[in-house]
């Protein structure tokens, strides 16, 4: 099942890479990987915190936490980490509105923080997130979970948990939709050359 062959192309020229069912299965698999890799259900487990990067990292972090709770009965604290104030491209775009930063009450000090975002592309958002995290506390370690890795990294950054690797051209656009924000779940590929 090559991802590029899946799904129909919609009138806007977008091809569906993941259906709602695929999204749910992918998140469940990522949750299992997080449980395995962090042994967060072990008796002497050390604290793990999921931090979603606005906008669509936030619902993804919540869903991962919900799946982890379903599989292990462990409640992982979740929060959000806005990176706008730490971006390196602020002066190249119109003024951006800020997102919310809400850390769990337990904080991030000495916890294993898993940053959660929808798409990993240049890696610059994650670079900003690492800076923002440094100002929020001192985690024991930091990992990265993304639903889609579309390649084209501009920085030495890689994800620890990847839902789907999607080879793309730079001109293409990958959009992740979540029901909480967009009304439905999907991952779409927009061919940049179609108007």
């Amino acid at each position, binding site marked *: 099942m090559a991802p590029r062959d899946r799904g129909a192309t919609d009138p806007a020229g977008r091809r569906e890479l993941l259906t709602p069912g695929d999204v749910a299965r992918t998140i469940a698999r990522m949750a299992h990987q997080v449980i395995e890799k962090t042994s967060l259900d072990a008796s002497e487990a050390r604290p793990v915190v999921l931090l979603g990067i606005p906008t669509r990292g936030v619902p993804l972090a919540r869903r991962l936490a919900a799946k982890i709770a379903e599989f292990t009965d462990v409640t992982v604290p979740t929060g959000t980490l806005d990176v706008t*104030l730490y971006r390196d491209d602020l*002066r190249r775009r119109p003024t951006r*509105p*800020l997102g919310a*930063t809400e850390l769990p009450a337990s904080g991030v000090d000495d916890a294993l923080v898993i940053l959660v975002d929808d798409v990993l592309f240049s890696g610059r958002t994650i670079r900003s997130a690492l800076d923002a995290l440094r*100002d929020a506390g001192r985690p024991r370690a930091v990992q990265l979970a993304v639903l889609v890795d579309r390649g084209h990294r501009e920085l030495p950054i890689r994800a620890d948990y990847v839902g789907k690797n999607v080879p793309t051209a730079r001109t293409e656009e990958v959009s992740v939709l979540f029901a909480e924000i967009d009304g439905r779940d999907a991952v779409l590929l927009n061919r940049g050359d179609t108007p």
Partner: protein
Amino acid sequence: MRHLLGADRLDADTALAILDTADGLKRTLLGREVKKLPTLRGRTVITMFYENSTRTRVSFEIAGKWMSADVVNVSAGGSSVGKGESLRDTALTLAAAGADCVIVRHPASGAAHRLAGWLSDVGTCVVNAGDGTHEHPTQALLDAATLRDRLGGIDGRRIGIVGDVLHSRVARSNVHLLTTLGAEVVVVAPPTLLPTALADWPVSGLTVSYDLDAELPTLDAVMMLRVQAERMHGGFFPSAREYAVHYGLNATRLAMLPEHAVVLHPGPMLRGMEIAHAVADSPRAAITEQVANGVHVRMAVLYHLLAGEEDQA
């Protein structure tokens, strides 16, 4: 946004965007040990104060520093202004020295607008931190932020602005901003301390009253203004005591306000004149919150002026 010169030019969307940014900054910095963001690294902000100020100058300086801008303070006393340099030459000098943003307070109404005209070619932005009796937009924004915190919103609320409206740039900016955001504003003052053409102001939702006691029970918030003796040349009221009796906010009047109503004062306060000790120190007063919000609002203003891509307009 290229400059911030007056609240009269702020539309509701821009004002709300600034207030939301201020809110976001406040939540981001809440409980943090290190209050430092890298957002404005490498940008230079110069404050240029031709009039005395504690809170405005300090909060602009803190706002700039918390966002990692380099902040330089120039005051009329210790600068070449004392040697007779004009406002224009001083401003062009500061721009040539590398200022990305000049924050100016000046005793002449319209000074910030003139400055913006002179500096438009060099790409330096101008923030009006108070010009004469004209405008003080960041004060209005921080008042609006405080009202949003305390009342949950501004749209549809009834807000009284009481006292020396004639000399108050805070009153002017607040009338513009609060009505833009959908509030009803009633200005309460003796006739001698009201601008003559108040009825002709092109704002909707503004009324005038001379009777404080009649208005108090209808208000969601009351903003007390300082009596600006330094701008008064002549008799505006018979005596300080008589002013306090008719227009001062004392404990008896505080009790006439609805339960939820909040008391604001832009500071500096003249205790015993427009506001009594007991009122200024009561939990109903949001005066120290106003100062704290001032830092976040000014950070937001600098963010909107300096962080985005260069405005070609």
